[in-house]
């Protein structure tokens, strides 16, 4: 009650700070003094107020204050404390408040961390960032206020959707937002840079840290979401090309391209306009993601609420931001006249540019697959859904070339490399990986030309990156680690999709079923009662052809608040494969529906993503980058 009041008023005060900080910034922009200390204090004040408001919301959740509508809709007094706290950002209102919190935190960090940058550039960045901040404040206060007072005060809350009660999901939104919001700093900074004509080597060096930070968090956030989908949704996969997954992938692709092109800008001062476009696009895609998820245009597990007024607000806000960036870019952008001797085909910057174009291609495939159904429905009233075959067909052939360029590119020098530099070793490795691919394809009797090329290319990259660890010392460690992680990721995904097997059947207690790789016996079930749910645990014995035994215990949970049945898969993870068993009730029947899957190299998908992130993190802590 009190907490909600404090939260609400500090949110309003936070908005007022925006209106105070703007005139100070403008005044400071035109005078000749150094940057005004008031800007520091006010942006800290703004961060503090939003933090206070967010903290108040957490307190309301912890003490289960059901006079607050958000708490009432998403919490329950019997919920474990951890999920009460996680419930704060597990809903629309709270998660937007978190967005705002990160937004104000990041701009504050930006101000104190950019001391060596020109004053006007810093002030402009703050101003652009304030536009975004004010937009979010207005959005929260007008359409999704988390502190709405309920009277009469309900005795009990409606509870958090049980599929959201998962540790991976509890930290998935905050991590993802750090990535999204980090991209807003890049957006504002690049617009400010364009206005001040400051897109240069120095700018690249300074903004690279922000790009890296958002890229790291975005990668982690997507991975956590994927882990959650794998363990909790029980569909037995890690990526479904669901529209909401796609909207998080789009900024990631953009950011990855940006991460590479900023290096070219930093080293060679070329690709400046391209870098600016990517910076703007990254944030635009992040906002598009927010729009598509929050407006309810897409039907998905992430759709919190279908309130068109929210959608309209974000849509207008998004259009204004894009319009501002378009106008700024076209009005102020000046092509720098730098004497570039010549662009050679065999050089690092060319290969980065080529890879950038490939990433843009993947991005447009994802974009079209996600947005096309929406456009088609409005224009022709026809409903279609775009599924994995679309993405696989369009991406796989290009992925082959992408991987090959990725293996060769880092070997080349900046500006120019002669043909002689390309050693015979690379060809030998290529032949070796083609041979591996051939034997794999032959082994499973799966005839598909593209697949075999793709496997060769993936193995090629894998071997080359592996070899690099031994050959060149620690000259560019982060790039090696990340590229190695990426090759491992692609190899694991490929092997995973090629060697996965699945059995689906209905069984009752005591029955067994034999399949190609062994026998599944349904031994017994056990009922248990917990604080907020009732559970049915099934005991399954699985014996494979080599007489190895494992016991899997999938679980059905019947939550009472709100009444939901979820099935918890039991997964036995080893380095080679995951064994995945999930059971479901068959209505009015003693049978249970069983799905047993063997998924090879599943753990490697998560590990390799972590390796990629590790590479990025290394780069953060390295002071001097490559000659």
């Amino acid at each position, binding site marked *: 009650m009190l907490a909600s009041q404090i939260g609400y008023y500090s949110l309003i005060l936070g908005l007022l700070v925006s209106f105070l900080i703007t005139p100070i910034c403008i005044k400071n922009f035109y005078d000749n003094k150094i940057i005004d200390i008031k800007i520091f204090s006010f942006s800290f004040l703004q961060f503090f107020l939003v933090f206070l408001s967010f903290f108040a919301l957490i307190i309301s959740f912890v003490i289960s204050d059901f006079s607050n509508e958000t708490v009432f809709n998403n919490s329950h007094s019997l919920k474990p404390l951890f999920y009460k706290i996680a419930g704060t950002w597990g809903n629309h209102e709270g998660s937007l408040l978190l967005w705002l919190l990160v937004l104000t935190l990041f701009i504050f960090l930006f101000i104190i961390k950019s001391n060596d940058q020109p004053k006007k550039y810093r002030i402009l960045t703050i101003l652009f960032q304030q536009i975004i901040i004010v937009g979010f404040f207005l959005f929260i206060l007008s359409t999704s206020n988390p502190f709405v007072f309920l009277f009469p005060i309900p005795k009990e809350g409606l509870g958090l959707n049980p599929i959201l009660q998962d540790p991976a999901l509890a930290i998935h939104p905050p991590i993802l937002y750090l990535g999204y919001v980090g991209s807003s700093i890049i957006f504002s900074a690049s617009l400010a840079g364009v206005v001040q004509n400051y897109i240069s080597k120095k700018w690249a060096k300074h903004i690279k840290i922000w790009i890296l930070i958002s890229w790291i968090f975005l990668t982690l956030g997507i991975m956590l979401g994927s882990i959650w989908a794998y363990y909790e949704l029980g569909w037995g996969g890690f990526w479904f090309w669901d529209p909401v997954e796609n909207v998080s992938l789009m900024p990631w692709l953009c950011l990855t391209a940006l991460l590479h092109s900023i290096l070219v800008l930093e080293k060679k001062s070329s690709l400046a306009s391209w870098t600016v476009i990517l910076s703007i696009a990254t944030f635009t895609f992040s906002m598009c993601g927010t*729009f598509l998820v929050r*407006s*309810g*245009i*897409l*039907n998905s597990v992430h759709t919190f609420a*279908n309130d*068109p007024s929210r*959608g*309209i607000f974000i*849509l207008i806000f998004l*259009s204004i931001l*894009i*319009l501002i960036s*378009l*106008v700024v870019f*076209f*009005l102020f952008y000046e092509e720098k006249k730098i004497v570039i001797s010549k662009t050679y085909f065999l050089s690092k910057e060319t290969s980065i540019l080529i890879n950038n174009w490939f990433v843009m291609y993947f991005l447009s495939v994802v974009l079209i697959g996600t947005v096309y159904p*929406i*456009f088609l*429905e*409005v*224009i022709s009233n026809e*409903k279609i*859904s775009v599924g994995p075959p679309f993405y696989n067909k369009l991406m796989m052939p290009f992925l082959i070339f992408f991987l090959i360029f990725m293996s060769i590119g880092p070997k080349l020098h900046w500006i120019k490399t002669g043909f002689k530099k390309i050693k015979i070793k690379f060809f030998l490795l290529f032949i070796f990986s083609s041979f591996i691919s051939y034997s794999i394809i032959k082994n499973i009797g799966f005839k598909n030309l593209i697949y075999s090329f793709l496997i060769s290319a993936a193995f090629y990259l894998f071997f080359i990156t592996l070899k690099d660890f031994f050959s060149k010392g620690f000259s560019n460690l982060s790039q090696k680690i990340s590229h190695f992680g990426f090759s491992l990721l692609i190899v694991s995904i490929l092997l995973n999709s090629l060697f996965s097997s699945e059995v689906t059947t209905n069984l009752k207690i005591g029955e067994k079923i034999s399949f190609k790789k062994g026998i599944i016996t349904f031994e017994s079930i056990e009922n248990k009662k917990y604080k907020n749910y009732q559970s049915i645990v099934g005991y399954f014995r699985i014996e494979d052809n080599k007489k190895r035994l494992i016991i899997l215990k999938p679980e059905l949970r019947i939550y009472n608040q709100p009444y939901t049945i979820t099935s918890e898969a039991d997964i036995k993870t080893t380095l080679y494969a995951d064994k995945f068993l999930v059971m479901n009730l068959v*209505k*009015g*029947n003693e049978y249970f529906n069983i799905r047993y899957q063997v998924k090879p190299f599943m753990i490697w998908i998560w590990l390799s993503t972590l390796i990629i992130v590790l590479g990025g993190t290394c780069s953060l802590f390295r002071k001097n980058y490559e000659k």
Partner: protein
Amino acid sequence: MELVVYLEKIMKNKILLSVAIFFLIFCFIILFKSLNNSNVYVPKSISEKPLINFSSQDLFSTVKISSDQIFIGSEFYILNIWASWCLPCRDEHAYLMEFSKNSSIKLIGLNYKDNPDNAKKFINKFGNPYLFNMVDLNGTISIKLGAYGIPETFLINKERKILKKIVGPLNKKLVKEINLIIK
């Protein structure tokens, strides 16, 4: 002075900028429109799909009847999935009663996951439009028919092809459509 420079720039990039803005406006309109569309996804009704065979008890006589015995000797049939606990079913009941007066249609009810006593009470209270009333105690027949939920209504012709499938309660507009097909 500066203004002139900017204006020159605008002129230079006029085409690009206007294309970009035009595209932005286009996207805005499309997305704005689609916001107001409902996003409840219903697959296209499979037109003229043959009806499956099923058999079940009759609600009142408790005799077991098969679909071969039901779908015979009439021009059109309406198969209506209902339950006494379903509130929208009450709303559409009046339309069903209306249809039962039409001699060219036979109405068949499919009582979905219901308590037989409650179902009988419902019929006694609101009237019986159905010629037969099949019991679908565990909902399997409805699933086989491809129902999404109740109430749901199928219009079937004498070749036992499904002409129209209506998800949700009947209303004036839908009744008009059915009448058009029957004529």
